[in-house]
């Protein structure tokens, strides 16, 4: 069965769905993509093509349409078409990255560079590594913090540290602590946690009362992919004194 999921509410402010954001960026950057460059409706038609069903049919039948997939998904496409690399092969040395050797200093062959050394961070002030986004069964990003039964399972914001670090910084389980990075600071409840690694501070992200991701510099990105370093920024931790504003 195929269903078309239309927007449930009128858009708030400048909100757009993910695909429209991607299309907007594609156009702004003047990039080409056979699926996206012709707009949202055309993209939907492209996605539906293998099913043989059209957008109009789906709109006419909100209860869903039963279809037989006319173009089944292809497997082992690389045997006929090769891979989407300049050589068409699996590249151990990336020819794309080699092109930017002089302009960006990229290397075709993967090189290990320890971010703790190349970041130029003052490690005396920020000796610990902040890891946000570790999974918890009851939480899913910011959204489940708004479900009281789930949010009520654990006190928030928990700052999980190894017993060795707890001893080193004079922190006991349940103490109010402040986690600071070069770009921000949040307050939380210390949880001494044996399974963590000494030197690492885990704070789950997404809590409006103490958003751990706000502690990560917006320009702290992987130099090639641009992905933010949520798992490994720099921080310090100290016991919170006086009135606590969590």
């Amino acid at each position, binding site marked *: 069965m195929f269903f078309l999921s239309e927007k449930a509410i009128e858009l708030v402010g400048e909100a757009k769905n993910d695909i429209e954001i991607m299309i907007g960026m594609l156009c702004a950057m003047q990039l080409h993509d056979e699926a996206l460059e012709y707009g949202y409706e055309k993209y939907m038609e492209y996605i539906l093509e293998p099913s043989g069903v059209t957008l109009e049919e789906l709109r006419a039948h909100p209860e869903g349409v039963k279809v037989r997939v006319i173009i089944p998904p292809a497997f082992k496409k690389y045997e006929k078409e090769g891979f989407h690399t300049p050589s068409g092969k699996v590249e151990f040395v990336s020819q794309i990255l080699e092109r930017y050797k002089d302009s960006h200093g990229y290397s075709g062959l993967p090189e290990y560079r320890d971010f703790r050394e190349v970041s130029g961070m003052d490690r005396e002030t920020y000796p610990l590594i902040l890891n946000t986004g570790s999974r918890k*069964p*009851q939480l899913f990003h910011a959204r489940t913090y708004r479900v*009281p*039964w*789930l949010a*009520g*399972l*654990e006190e928030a914001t928990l700052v999980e540290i190894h017993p060795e670090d707890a001893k080193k910084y004079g922190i006991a389980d349940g103490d109010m602590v402040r986690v600071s990075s070069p770009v921000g600071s949040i307050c939380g409840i210390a949880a001494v*946690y*044996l*399974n963590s690694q000494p030197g690492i501070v885990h704070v789950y992200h997404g809590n409006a009362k103490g958003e751990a991701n706000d502690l990560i510099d917006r320009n702290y990105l992987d130099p090639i992919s641009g992905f933010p370093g949520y798992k490994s920024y720099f921080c310090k931790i100290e016991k919170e004194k006086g009135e606590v504003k969590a």
Partner: protein
Amino acid sequence: MSYRLKFDPDKCVGCYACHIACLDAHHDVEDVDAKSHRTVKKVVKNQFEKNICPGCAHCGICIKACPVQSIYKDPKTGFVLTDKEKCIGCHACEKVCPKDVIHFDKDGKMKKCDGCIERIREGREPACVRVCFPGAITLE
């Protein structure tokens, strides 16, 4: 028939599904401040730490501690139940509970697991038993 709710801490993975099932079985969704009848405990074994979710085993130790006989054993199921009207909120039961699973409502009255007695009467399993996928909670 006398039931016991068994809990195996080795099998528990701390997923909290029993907490949510318990809340769902005993409360309306609007009841945002509701507390589940189960608890969360940290355990350490072989240098590995995990959270587990013990609940009332219906051992009945609290019955003897209650000075006003507000806690009693249901003759049909053997579940340990509480009479809210009689409870004076003295917390004597909380002090003797070996599982730390007795809590108090906003009026100071004792609250505990009722073994999902309503579900049992309907021929169903307790909510926590139903959702516990590793089989840590069992009705015996």
